C-alpha cells in the first residue's frame, strides 16, 4: 500500500536497510539457488551434544562456556543406506546470536525464528536458574536444534550463504559474517525499531498483527508464570506423600498381621512421591514450546514495526516533495503561499534579483526530480516489503496454529499419562492395604 500523498514528489530521509534491488535480488536467489528451494530437504541437521570449555578471558580469568556440536549430513545419505559419518563443528550460544542478528538485518520482512532463552526464566522452585545446570543445557541443545531446523525449512532463510557456512565452516565464519557489514545495519535497525513516530496511513493488517503479537506475548507470559506455580504446588503434593512411606514402615514394625501390607504400601507411596520428577521434567518441554512462541512475538512485532518505519519514511518523503513543489510554485508565481522565514526577510529587505531566483529555481527543480525518482523507488520498496512480509506472516500464522495445536495435544497426552500413573500407584497401594 502506498503513501497517500496525492503526489509523487518527496525527498529521501532516513535509513533504508535494503534497496528494492537488494530485496529482489534476495528473492531471486531463493528461486535460483543451486541448493534447491528448501535446505531442510537436502540436509539433515542435528545439534548432537553439548560440552563445557574453559578459556582465559580478557582479564585473564577462567571462563566456562558451553559449546554445541552441530552435525550435518546430506539427507539422501540415509536413504542410500550408507551410514556416512556426518560433518560436524562446534558452536557456542553467542555465535547463534550473531547468526540470528545477521538474519534479522538481512531479511527484515521475515518473522525470524527465535533462539532458546539465554537465561532460565519462569522457573518453578526445583529448577535452578543456573545456566550450567545439565537439564537447562539439554533443553537449550534441543532449542538450538529446533532453531536451525526452522531456519533450514524457511523458504527464504534456508538459502542464505552465511547460514550455510554457519553449518559447515567452523573457522573463519565469524570473519565472514562481520565482513558483510551487518553490524552497522543492526545498530541502526535497533534504533529505528525503538523510535517513536506516527504513521498517518498504516496498513490495517499490520496494525492488527502487531496488536495480536502484543496480546499473545502477554497471555503466554501469564500462562508460563501460572504454570510454574502450578508445577511448584504439584511437586509439594507428591513429595509429602513420601512421608507416608516412612511412617508406614515404622508402623509396620509394631504390627503382626498388618505389617507386610503396610510396608509394601509404604513403598508405593515412595514411588508415587518420586514419580513427580519425571512428570515435571516432561512438562518443561511444553513450557519450552510456549516460550518459543513467546519469543516469536518479538520477531513478529519487528516485522510490523519495520513496515511502519518504511511507511513513515515514505510519508515523510512524500511530504517533503510536496513542500518543495509548493516552493517552486511560489518562486514561479511570486506569491507566498507558505510562510517561511526567507520569504519574510526577502519581503522586508527587498526581493531577490532575477538571477538569484533563476538559480534557486534550478536547484529546486533538481531536488524535485531527485525526490520524484526517490519516491518512486520508495513506493516500490514499500510494495515489495508489504507483499513479502505479509506472505511470511501468513506462513507464520499457519505454522503457529499447527504448532500450538500439537503442543496442546502433547500436553493433554502428558496429563493422561500422569493420571494413568496415579491410578496405577494407588491401585497397587490399595491392594497392599487390602492385605493388611
Amino acid at each position, binding site marked *: 500500500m502506498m503513501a497517500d500523498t496525492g503526489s509523487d514528489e518527496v525527498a529521501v530521509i532516513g535509513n533504508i536497510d535494503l534497496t528494492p534491488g537488494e530485496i529482489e535480488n534476495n528473492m531471486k536467489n531463493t528461486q535460483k539457488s543451486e541448493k534447491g528451494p528448501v535446505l531442510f530437504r537436502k540436509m539433515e541437521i542435528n545439534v548432537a551434544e553439548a560440552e563445557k570449555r574453559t578459556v582465559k578471558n580478557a582479564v585473564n580469568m577462567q571462563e566456562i562456556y558451553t559449546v554445541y556440536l552441530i552435525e550435518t549430513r546430506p539427507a539422501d545419505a540415509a536413504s542410500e543406506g550408507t551410514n556416512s559419518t556426518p560433518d560436524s563443528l562446534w558452536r557456542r550460544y553467542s555465535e547463534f546470536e550473531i547468526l540470528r542478528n545477521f538474519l534479522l538485518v538481512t531479511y527484515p520482512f521475515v518473522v525470524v525464528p527465535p533462539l532458546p532463552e539465554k537465561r532460565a526464566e519462569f522457573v518453578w522452585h526445583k529448577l535452578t536458574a543456573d545456566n550450567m545446570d545439565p537439564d537447562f543445557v539439554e533443553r537449550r541443545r534441543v532449542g538450538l536444534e529446533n532453531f536451525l531446523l526452522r531456519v533450514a525449512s524457511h523458504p527464504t532463510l534456508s538459502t542464505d550463504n552465511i547460514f550455510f557456512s554457519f553449518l559447515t565452516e567452523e573457522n573463519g565464519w565469524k570473519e565472514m559474517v562481520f565482513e558483510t557489514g551487518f553490524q552497522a545495519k543492526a545498530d541502526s535497525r535497533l534504533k529505528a525499531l525503538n523510535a517513536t513516530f506516527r504513521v498517518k496511513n498504516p496498513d490495517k493488517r499490520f496494525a492488527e498483527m502487531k496488536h495480536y503479537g502484543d496480546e499473545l506475548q502477554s497471555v503466554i507470559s501469564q*500462562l508460563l508464570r*501460572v504454570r510454574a506455580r502450578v508445577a511448584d504446588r504439584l511437586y509439594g503434593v507428591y513429595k509429602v506423600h513420601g512421608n*507416608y512411606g516412612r511412617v508406614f514402615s515404622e508402623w509396620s514394625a509394631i504390627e503382626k498381621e*498388618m505389617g507386610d501390607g503396610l510396608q509394601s504400601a509404604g513403598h508405593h507411596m515412595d514411588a508415587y512421591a518420586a514419580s513427580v520428577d519425571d512428570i515435571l521434567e516432561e512438562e518443561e518441554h511444553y513450557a519450552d514450546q510456549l516460550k518459543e512462541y513467546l519469543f516469536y512475538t518479538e520477531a513478529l512485532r519487528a516485522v510490523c514495526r519495520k513496515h511502519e518505519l518504511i511507511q513513515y519514511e515514505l510519508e515523510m518523503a512524500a511530504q517533503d516533495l510536496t513542500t518543495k513543489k509548493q516552493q517552486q510554485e511560489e518562486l514561479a508565481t511570486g506569491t507566498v503561499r507558505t510562510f517561511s522565514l526567507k520569504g519574510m526577510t526577502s519581503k522586508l529587505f527587498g526581493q531577490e534579483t532575477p538571477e538569484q531566483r533563476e538559480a534557486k529555481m534550478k536547484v529546486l527543480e533538481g531536488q524535485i526530480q531527485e525526490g520524484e525518482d526517490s519516491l518512486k523507488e520508495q513506493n516500490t520498496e514499500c510494495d515489495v516489503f508489504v507483499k513479502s512480509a505479509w506472505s511470511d506472516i501468513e506462513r507464520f500464522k499457519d505454522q503457529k*496454529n499447527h504448532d500450538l495445536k500439537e503442543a496442546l*495435544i502433547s500436553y*493433554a497426552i502428558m496429563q493422561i499419562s500422569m*493420571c494413568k500413573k496415579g491410578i496405577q500407584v494407588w491401585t497397587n*497401594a*490399595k491392594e497392599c492395604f487390602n492385605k493388611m
Partner: protein
Amino acid sequence: MSASTPKTLCTSGQQSIQDICHPLSAEESVRTPSPDVGNTTGSIGEKDLSLPNGTPVDTSSPASSSSLLNRLQLDDDLDGETRDLFVTVDDPKKHVSTMETYITYRVSTKTTRVEFDLPEYSVRRRYQDFDWLRIKLEDTQPTHLIPPLPEKFVMKGVVDRFSEEFVETRRKALDKFLKRVADHPVLSFNEHFNVFLSAKDLNAYKKQGLALLTKMGESVKYVTGGYKLRGRPLEFAAMGDYLDVFTQKLGTIDRIAQRIIKEQSEYLVELREYGPVYSSWAGFEGPLQEPLEGVAGCVANCAGALDELTEDMSDDFLPVLREYVLYIESMKTVLKKRDNVQAEYEAKLEAVAFRKEERTAQPPTDVEKCQDRVECFNADLKADWDRWQNNKRQDFRQLLTGMADRNIQYYEKCLSAWESIIPLLQDRPENTKTETS
C-alpha cells in the same frame, strides 16, 4: 462378703443374680440368651471368648478356662449373618428452643434378643445422651474398653456446630460408637445400653439414679487406693509399649494427612487461576479457540475433582484417625485401672505375709477376692485387647483402602476429562496419530 453374694464378675451381662457362679468353681453354666438364635458369637453369658470376628481369646487364666463352646472362627464377612443386634444412627435434626439449639439423631435398633421387649426401636438422642451412656458404661464395666465418642467441645467460631459437614462427621462417629458397643459381647448386654436404645424418655431414666442391677458395678470402684504397682506383667507391658508407639505413628499420619490437604488446597488455588488463562487466550485466537477452550474446561474439571478429594479426606479420613487416638487413650486408661487392681492385690498379699498370726492354709477372703478381681480383669482386658486389635485392623484397612479409592477416583475423573478432549484437539483428519502411553 459371702461367696454367694453377687460379685462383679468379669463378664457381667444380663444375668440374674442366682445364675452367677464363682469364677473359680468347676461347673460353669452355659447360657444363650435366646434359644432360636444360632451360634451367635456374642451370646455367651459368662465369658466372652468367641469374638465377633472370630479370633480366639487366650484361655490360660483359670477364670476363663471353660465355656468356650461357641468359639467360631468367623470370617469378617459373616459378621452380619450371626449378629442379633443392629443399631444405626441417622437422620440428624435441629431443635430450636428458647434455651438452646441442639441436634438430635435417630437411633434405630433391630434385635432378636430377649433382653429387649420389642424387636424394633426408634428413638431420638442428642450428644449429651451418648455422653451419659459412655460414662455409665465406664462406671459399670470398668474392666472393659469402652469405645470413644467424638470430641465433646468444639471451639465456637472456629467450627460451625450446625454445618452439614460437622453434623455428618459427628453422626458417623456416633454411629460407629453404638455399633462398637453393640458388637461387644459384654457391653452390648449392659442395662444402660438397653435403656439408651429403647426408652422413650431417657431423661426420666437418667434421673432415677442407680437402677436395680447396677449395684454390682457401682459398688466396686476401681479407684486408685494409693497402691503402686511394682511391675506390669510382660504381656500388659507390651500392650502399653505398643500403644505408645501406635499413638506416635497415628499422630504422624494425622500431620501428614493435614499437610497433604493443605498442599492440595494450594494446588487447587493455582489451578483455578491457570484454567481461565487458556480461556482468555481463546478469546483472541481464531482456529485455536476451540482447543484452548477445551483445555480450559479440562483444567476446571480437574480442579473440581481435586476439591472433592480434599473435602472427602478432610471429612472422612481425619476424624476417623483422631477417633483412634481417643480409643488408644481409653485403652491406656483401662490398662492403668488394671494396674491399680493388681497393685491392691499385691499390697494386700504383702500385708498378709507380714502378719504371721493370720497365716492360714487358705489365703483370707478379701485377698482372695482381690486375686479374683485381678484375674477377671486380666481376662477381660486380654479379650478386649484382641477384639480391639482385630477391629483396629479392619478399621484401618477400611480407612486406608478408602483413601486409596478416593485418590483413584480423582485420577479417573481427570483422566476422562483429558481423554475426552483429545478428539476435540485433533479435529482434522490429516493430523498425525498421537500415541497414548
